[in-house]
């Protein structure tokens, strides 16, 4: 069961902040495709420049394999406090 987290404007676009997926997609690219199929506007927002991805709280730049218990966070540009 993968845990997906959205921050900042991404959760406003999606209408949710956190969801779980069972089974977990095999790869980050599969997860992106799944989310975009569900919600095209969100899919586009997640692919926008400046949106970073943290896999188990570590930033990843490229595609990556997900484990069944991965936590994937989509992070729009950080604004500072």
């Amino acid at each position, binding site marked *: 069961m993968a845990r997906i987290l959205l*921050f900042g404007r991404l959760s406003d676009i999606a209408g949710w902040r956190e969801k779980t997926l069972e089974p977990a997609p095999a790869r980050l690219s599969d997860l992106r495709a799944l989310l975009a199929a569900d919600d095209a506007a969100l899919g586009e927002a997640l692919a926008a420049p400046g949106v970073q991805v943290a896999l188990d709280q570590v930033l990843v730049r490229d595609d990556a394999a997900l484990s069944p218990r991965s936590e994937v966070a989509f992070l729009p540009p950080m604004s500072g*406090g």
Partner: protein
Amino acid sequence: MISLTDQGFDPGPLLSGFCRGRAETGAVASFTGLARAEGGETKILELEAYPGFTEAQIGAFAETARTRFDLQDLMIVHRIGQIAPGEPIVFVATAASHRRAAFEACDYLMDYLKSRAPFWKKEHGPDGARWVEPRAEDHEDIARWA
């Protein structure tokens, strides 16, 4: 010590505790950022963090400050959630042998916290809410240290 809190906090007791028992320190600089009303333009500031990730990223940056300025100690307390005008948003304190290092490290940490730290900021004003991205000024501030 790096911590996030969704409760209001008073910077005074933090500074008192930070200064206590420092017979070899000499210099403690601090910065307190307060939410501004902007003449009624901003009613409530809302800050979102990614718990665990946000502290870890700030902690990693704080280590660079500790080394770069030869700090003896530092403290960062950051408010998250909804913040009313006049309330403290952030408190940073730095301890060093000499004041130049303490001031510069505090300034450096604040430039980072205001421009690149993992927070997402929403301003609730009279015309609704909007997400805020870092200002050009904040990017220039952090660029000074490159």
